[in-house]
C-alpha cells in the first residue's frame, strides 16, 4: 500500500509504523488480541468469569469483533469493589509496577503492570509524542504529577523511549517551572491544560515571555479542555498544543493522541478497542453521533479490562485523517457524562461555559461555576477573576462586559447566569485537575 506521512518537524520513528497498519491487518490483529484478552480475563479474573457465566458466554463465543457487544461492561466501582488486586489476571510476582488513584471520591483504585505492559505503555506514549512532531533531541519538561498518578511516569517512559531528554520536574512550584523552562532550553512541555494556563499567567508575572523561548510543543491531558483553550494557549505562547488522552484504568496517558493535523484523537487501536455507545441504553451509535466511549484493552496482561465505561462523551470521526494514519479518530473529549449539571432541567456541561467565556474577547479562564437552589429555582452564578483587561474605571463599562459574558453563556447553554467579577486570586488555583464547579445544591437539607 502507498504510504503517506505528514508529521512535520519529526524524524519518522520505526515504531510509528503500527499507526499506519492497513485496515484489514489492524482488524485482524484486534480480533486475535481480543480473543486472547477475553480468554485471559475469563480464566483468571473471578468477576469477569462470574459475569460471563451469568450471561451464558464462553470466551470461544467471541468470533468476530462485533461479538464484543455481547460481553458485560466494567465500571469504576468494579475496581473499587475488588481493591486492591481483585482484577489482576497474573500472579503478583509478575507485576513490576503499581499505580493508584488518589481516592478522593472513595476507595482508591489500583492498577498493575507486567513488564510487557510497561513496554506497551512506553510504546504507545512514544508513538503519541512522535505524532505531535516530537523527536530525539527534544527536551521535555514533564509537569504531570509523579508518583501514584499515572500521568508523570507514563509520559516519562514514553519520552525516554522516544530518545528525548526528560526533565522529571513533576507538578507544582510554578516559579521553578518557569525558571527551568527558560534556562534548560525546553522544547516540549507536558501537564494538564489548566496548569499550563496558570503557568502562562505566572510567566508573565515573572517577566518571562514564552514566545521568545525555544518551546515548540505542548502535550496536555488528564482533564477535558476546549478548542478555545487550545487557541488561547497557542496564541499566547506560539507553541502547538496537542491533546493526549488516557485513563489509569486502561493504561494511563497514551490511549490516544492528536496528530499534527490537530483534528481528533487517534486511538492506538492495536492495543485498545473502542466503542461509542448510547450511555443510557448501551446500544452502539453510528459514526459521528455523540455517545459514551467504552474501551477494551487488547494486550494488557496484569489487568485486562473489558468494555470499560469511561463516562467520556465523544464521537467517531469517520473520514480518513490527512496524516495518513489508519488509526480511527474520536473527537476531542470536552465533556463527561458524570460532570453534567442539570440546571432548571437543562443539561449544562462546564466545558460549554468555558467555551462561551473564552468567546468573549480577552477573557482568561479563571472562573468557577456555583450552583445554588433558591427556593425551588436553581441559580447559576459564574465567578470570574477580574483582569486588567476586564477592569475599567467606569461602572457602565464593567457592566457592559459582564452583560456580554452573561449573554455568551446564555446563548450557549440556554441558562441565565449571574456573572460576578471577583478580586484576583480568590478562586482556588489548580496545580493539577481543575475544580470548576461548586454545586451547593447537594448540601441543601430537604425542606420539611
Amino acid at each position, binding site marked *: 500500500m502507498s504510504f503517506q506521512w505528514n508529521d512535520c518537524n519529526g524524524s519518522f520513528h520505526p515504531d510509528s509504523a503500527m499507526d499506519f497498519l492497513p485496515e484489514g491487518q489492524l482488524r485482524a490483529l484486534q480480533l486475535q488480541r481480543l480473543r486472547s484478552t477475553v480468554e485471559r480475563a475469563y480464566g483468571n479474573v473471578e468477576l469477569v468469569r462470574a459475569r460471563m457465566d451469568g450471561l451464558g458466554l464462553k470466551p470461544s463465543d467471541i468470533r468476530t469483533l462485533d461479538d464484543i457487544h455481547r460481553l458485560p461492561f466494567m465500571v469504576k466501582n468494579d475496581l473499587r469493589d475488588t481493591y486492591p488486586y481483585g482484577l489482576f489476571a497474573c500472579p503478583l510476582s509478575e507485576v513490576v509496577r503499581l499505580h493508584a488513584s488518589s481516592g478522593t471520591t472513595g476507595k482508591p483504585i489500583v492498577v498493575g503492570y507486567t513488564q510487557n505492559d510497561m513496554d506497551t505503555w512506553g510504546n504507545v506514549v512514544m508513538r503519541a509524542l512522535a505524532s505531535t512532531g516530537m523527536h530525539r533531541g527534544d527536551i521535555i519538561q514533564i509537569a504531570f504529577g509523579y508518583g501514584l498518578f499515572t500521568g508523570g511516569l507514563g509520559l516519562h517512559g514514553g519520552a525516554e523511549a522516544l530518545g528525548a531528554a526528560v526533565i522529571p520536574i513533576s507538578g507544582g512550584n510554578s516559579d521553578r517551572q518557569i525558571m527551568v523552562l527558560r534556562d534548560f532550553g525546553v522544547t516540549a512541555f507536558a501537564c494538564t491544560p489548566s496548569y499550563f494556563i496558570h503557568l502562562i499567567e505566572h510567566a508573565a508575572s515573572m517577566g518571562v515571555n514564552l514566545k521568545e523561548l525555544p518551546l515548540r510543543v505542548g502535550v496536555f491531558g488528564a482533564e477535558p479542555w476546549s478548542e478555545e483553550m487550545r487557541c488561547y494557549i497557542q496564541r499566547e505562547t506560539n507553541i502547538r498544543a496537542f491533546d493526549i488522552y488516557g485513563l489509569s484504568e486502561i493504561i494511563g496517558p497514551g490511549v490516544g493522541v492528536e496528530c499534527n493535523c490537530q483534528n481528533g484523537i487517534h486511538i492506538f487501536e492495536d492495543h485498545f478497542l473502542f466503542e461509542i455507545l448510547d450511555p443510557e441504553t448501551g446500544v452502539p451509535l453510528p459514526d459521528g453521533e455523540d455517545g459514551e466511549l467504552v474501551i477494551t484493552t487488547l494486550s494488557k496482561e496484569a489487568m485486562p479490562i473489558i468494555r470499560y465505561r469511561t463516562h467520556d462523551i465523544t464521537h467517531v470521526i469517520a473520514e480518513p485523517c490527512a496524516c495518513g494514519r489508519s488509526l480511527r479518530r474520536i473527537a476531542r473529549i470536552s465533556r463527561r457524562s458524570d460532570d453534567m449539571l442539570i440546571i432548571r432541567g437543562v443539561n449544562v456541561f462546564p466545558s460549554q461555559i468555558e467555551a462561551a467565556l473564552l468567546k468573549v474577547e480577552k477573557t482568561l479562564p479563571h472562573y468557577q461555576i456555583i450552583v445554588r437552589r433558591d427556593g425551588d429555582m436553581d441559580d447559576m452564578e459564574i465567578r470570574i477573576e*477580574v483582569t486588567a483587561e476586564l*477592569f475599567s474605571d*467606569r*461602572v457602565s463599562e464593567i457592566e457592559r462586559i459582564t452583560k456580554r459574558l452573561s449573554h455568551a453563556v446564555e446563548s450557549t447553554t440556554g441558562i441565565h447566569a449571574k456573572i460576578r467579577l471577583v478580586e484576583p486570586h480568590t478562586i482556588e488555583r489548580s496545580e493539577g485537575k481543575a475544580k470548576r464547579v461548586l454545586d451547593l445544591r447537594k448540601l441543601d437539607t430537604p425542606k420539611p
Partner: protein
Amino acid sequence: MKIHQLSVFLENQPGHLATPCAILADAGINIITLTLADTQRFGILRLILQEWEKAQQILAAHGLITKITEVVAVQVEDRPGGLRTLLEVVEASGVNIEYMYAFTDRTEGKGVMVFRLDDADKGIAALLHAGVCLLNSEELYKLAQGGKQ
C-alpha cells in the same frame, strides 16, 4: 492639563475597602482625594494621589487590579452656582461627563471638581476657551499639600 487617577477593583464586601487603604498607609502614600463607585456586586475605588505610579506598583504587587486613567481637575468658587457655569460650558461643547466628584480646598475657599470626560482634549479646550481655571498636576498636588497644613 490632565491628572492621573488610579482606580482599584473591589468586591462589594465588608472589609474590602480597608485593604488598599492599609497598603497605601503602610507605604506612607497620602491620598489627596478619593471616591467610591459602588454597585450591588462590586466597587471601583478612584484615587487621586501625588505618588500614583508608586501606589499602582505597590497595589499590583499585592495582587489588586488597578487602572490609570486621565481626568480633568477644575478649580471653582466654593459658592452657590460655582459649578453651574462649568457644566454649561462642558455641555455646550458636546463632551459627555462619565462621572465627576469634588473636594473643597479650605485655604483658598474654593472647590476642586474632578471630571472624567469621554473626550478629555475637546473638554479641556472648551473649558480653557471659557476662561475656567484648570489645574495641572503640580498645581493640584501643591494645593493639596497646602490644604493639609
